[in-house]
């Protein structure tokens, strides 16, 4: 936990601190369509299809799997 906070703090101070918006400028970012994953079910479907048909998986989140996909 301490290491996580330390690494996180380093990453943040490394350049992110000057970016961003004030809390009252978040109207656009708060929209559903601006979330990183807009449709969790569609994302899960795609992850499962491509996990089954390609040799790569994950990236956005965990590697997925859990099937003996043919």
């Amino acid at each position, binding site marked *: 936990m301490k290491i*996580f*906070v330390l*690494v*996180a*703090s380093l*990453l*943040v101070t490394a350049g*992110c*601190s000057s*970016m*961003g*918006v*004030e*809390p009252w*400028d*978040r*109207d*656009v*970012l*708060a*929209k559903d*369509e*601006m*979330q*990183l994953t*807009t*449709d*969790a*079910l*569609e994302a*899960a*479907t795609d992850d499962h*299809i*491509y996990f089954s*048909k*390609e*040799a*790569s*998986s*994950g*990236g*956005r*989140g*965990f*590697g997925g*799997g*859990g*099937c*003996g996909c*043919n």
Partner: protein
Amino acid sequence: MAATKGQSISVSLASATCALLGGVTPAAVQAQEEPGWDFNTSLLYYGEDADRVQDLSISVLATRTFMDDRALTMGLTVDALTGATPNGGQYQAVPQTFTSPSGNAVFTVPAGTLALDDSFRDTRVAVSANWTQPFSRLYTFDAGLSASKEYDYMHLGANAKISRDFNQRNTTVSAGFAYAADSLNPVGGTPTPLTPMADVGDLSNRIGDQDKDVVDFVVGVTQVISRNLVVQANYSFSDSSGYLNDPYKIVSLVDGITGDVVPRTPAPGLQGPSHEYVFESRPDQRTKHSLYGQAKYYMNGKVLDASYRYMTDDWDIDSHTVDLRFRWPVGERSYFEPHLRYYTQTEANFYQVGLVDSVPLPMYASSDYRLGNFDAITAGLKYGWTTRNDNDMSVRLELYQQRGSIPADRLIGSQVGLFEYPDLDAVILQFSYRFGR
């Protein structure tokens, strides 16, 4: 001294006031989800051409949000799978007969066609549960469990993730961990790698159930750049160990000069393979590293979602994936979303079209097309709209195409004229309905 003391008291009072205000204000302005249920449902048809895999799938993702942004998410997916799948056998100018995975029947593929095993039929049920718990104002903790069951496969998994916000919540750093314990009990038993496909009824090379463990780590940063732009970068590490073969895939044994699969005669009175095939053999360990970047950019109501992933592993597979979606509103309550995805991968270092029978077999070999060298393109269009009851509906149609290749100098004799990569064309049709919010 008195003045200093007085100053320090006023400073303390001021900071105490700020701390009190600070403790209260963010909670008051922070956007909170209204407690309640949200249901996300979908019906999916996935169909490959030439009677290959067809999947009809139904999914529900139910989220119950509580006060303080705590949330419980539960998922259920049921897949009904049928169709034929390439077993790895190479093209031949003559018909080929194979013993089915169960070991109690044979099937024959015509001359000059892809070796497809059509005995594949399965139902998969997958469930998941996830709990989200914000704590200490800037942290969020997520923990989840997942399980799935097929006729010949079972998955059990657990995952946990912690995130912390920085810079007025413009930066979020997260770290996650997932563990999966899967087990396989293939139809007819697990074949011993590199042993020959045997006659009907001969299960002497079959071993018991097998296990596979997968450990995943993901660390990521999400950063708000401006009012219209948010980006994310992730690094993930994945380690799989145990039985990593596909128990139904084989490799053809070929003549080193002619390139033809070596013919074989079943034992008298028995049915069996017409040619020599061995079951595939993959290493029992695989380590993958991925870098993922995503950007979402808002332009006057339209949203561009672009992502890129690079993956490399110790089987020598490298891949690049580019994914682009563009959400284009039509009026107040509907939108179109075109989608384009490009994927390319290099082959595993043990990918083979066939193995020459006159030399000792290598330790690892697979003819699984998914471990070969190929490119894939997905092109699709989604249309979404808000219903009169303020629920969301969408339908998307996508075409997925894989095209593979192998360098000509890797082919011998008749393979030069006969080899064709088991290219894939598939249709994805998904209907989604979200309600309850």
